[in-house]
């Protein structure tokens, strides 16, 4: 009789260990703490990488043989565009997880990713316009790449606006998850637009297979900047998530304790 209870408890315990990570991920104080300890080292690393990449790319690379110095906008334009696309997948997948498993923290991640993605998309469009004027001769052209990127900006802003439009946060999360999942189709369209259609925007210079069309002396700082922008996105995401967690859980004991601790400092 006793042994049977023991076995059942053991089984329960194993089950608990297996799922503890998943469950901890769903625990706001745990996530708040772990995000904080990641940020403590990731934030300085990100700032260093951004500084080194920007100084290397903007000051220590050769000018381009045709564009001269104006090509240097690539060190801001390409990283922000790449991470704007990748960030959309983060938002949409977090939305899917919150839709299927009703995981609150996934909802927090989705909501936190949207404004960061919108900012990155805006930077990509803005720097593209700045580069387009001296290179193409126009600030804006309704070609497939630029138009689909503008749609991405509207999708991100749409998620932000839709979330705020609901009083019921659960309904808001569900609606936003569906919007981001439907909008996911836009990402491969943006990526392949320059290959599928005749566009003003040139095809990708960095190639995953074969030699890149950008000289390696210009490529290395660009790759560093892309890595730095990924890290920057992660930092902003974690910071946004922490802020959102504290706001949502403002009535709970752990947040009160946190505020008290901060007040005591």
């Amino acid at each position, binding site marked *: 009789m006793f042994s049977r209870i023991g076995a059942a408890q053991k089984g329960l315990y194993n089950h608990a260990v297996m799922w503890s990570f998943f469950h901890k991920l769903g625990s706001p104080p745990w996530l708040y703490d772990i995000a904080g300890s990641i940020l403590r080292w990731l934030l300085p690393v990100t700032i260093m990488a951004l500084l080194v990449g920007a100084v290397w790319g903007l000051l220590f*690379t*050769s*000018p*381009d*043989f*045709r*564009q001269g110095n104006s*090509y240097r906008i*690539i060190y801001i334009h390409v990283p922000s565009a790449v991470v704007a696309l990748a960030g959309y997948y983060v938002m949409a997948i977090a939305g*899917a997880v919150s*839709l*299927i*498993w009703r995981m609150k923290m996934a909802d927090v991640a989705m909501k936190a990713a949207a404004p960061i993605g919108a900012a990155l998309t805006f930077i990509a469009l803005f720097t593209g316009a700045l580069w387009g004027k*001296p*290179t*193409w*001769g*126009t600030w804006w*052209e*309704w*070609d*497939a790449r630029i138009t689909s990127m503008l749609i991405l900006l509207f999708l991100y802003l749409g998620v932000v606006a839709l979330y705020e439009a609901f009083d019921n946060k659960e309904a808001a999360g569900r609606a936003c998850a*569906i919007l981001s*999942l*439907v909008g*996911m*189709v*836009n990402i491969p*369209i943006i990526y392949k637009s320059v290959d*599928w*259609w*005749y*566009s*003003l925007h*040139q*095809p*990708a*210079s960095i190639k995953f297979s074969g*030699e890149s*069309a*950008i*000289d390696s*002396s*210009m490529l290395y700082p660009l790759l560093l900047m892309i890595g730095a922008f990924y890290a920057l996105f992660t930092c902003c995401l974690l910071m946004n998530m922490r802020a959102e967690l504290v706001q949502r859980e403002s009535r709970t004991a752990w947040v009160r304790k946190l505020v008290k601790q901060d007040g005591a400092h």
Partner: protein
Amino acid sequence: MHPVRRQRLILVLFLVVFSSVAAGLVTYALRGNINLFFPPAEVAAGGAPVGQSIRVGGMVLEDSVQRSQDSLEVSFTLTDYEAQVPVVYAGILPDLFGEGQGAVAAGKLDENGVLQATEVLAKHDENYMPPEVAEALEKSGYDKKGQAR
């Protein structure tokens, strides 16, 4: 997996697949309108409307750029190495416009098949390199992909 969650998972997958198929059909149906410009071969084949605003894109043919002495008028030929479209334009050309480089001209085709352009844009390609590398490649007579020019 819990049946309710499995049902939601199927719903999510259906949503993604359905919206992808819908977007695919829409972009396939509109493919002619998504293209920013007509290649010269399509203009030569009669695929571009005459007397309507269109864009033609291609490479500026070597030795085809002729500038007027007393005005901003310039004429050049766009080619995709299959067909050619002559272009006439009065205005300031972008800095990166040049022979052997890509360009997109917007305007109307006249009866003689000449594009009366109202705007000319330079189309930049994906190649980025320092001037020394470009010079070295020029000397060797190979382009960046190792193909002889």
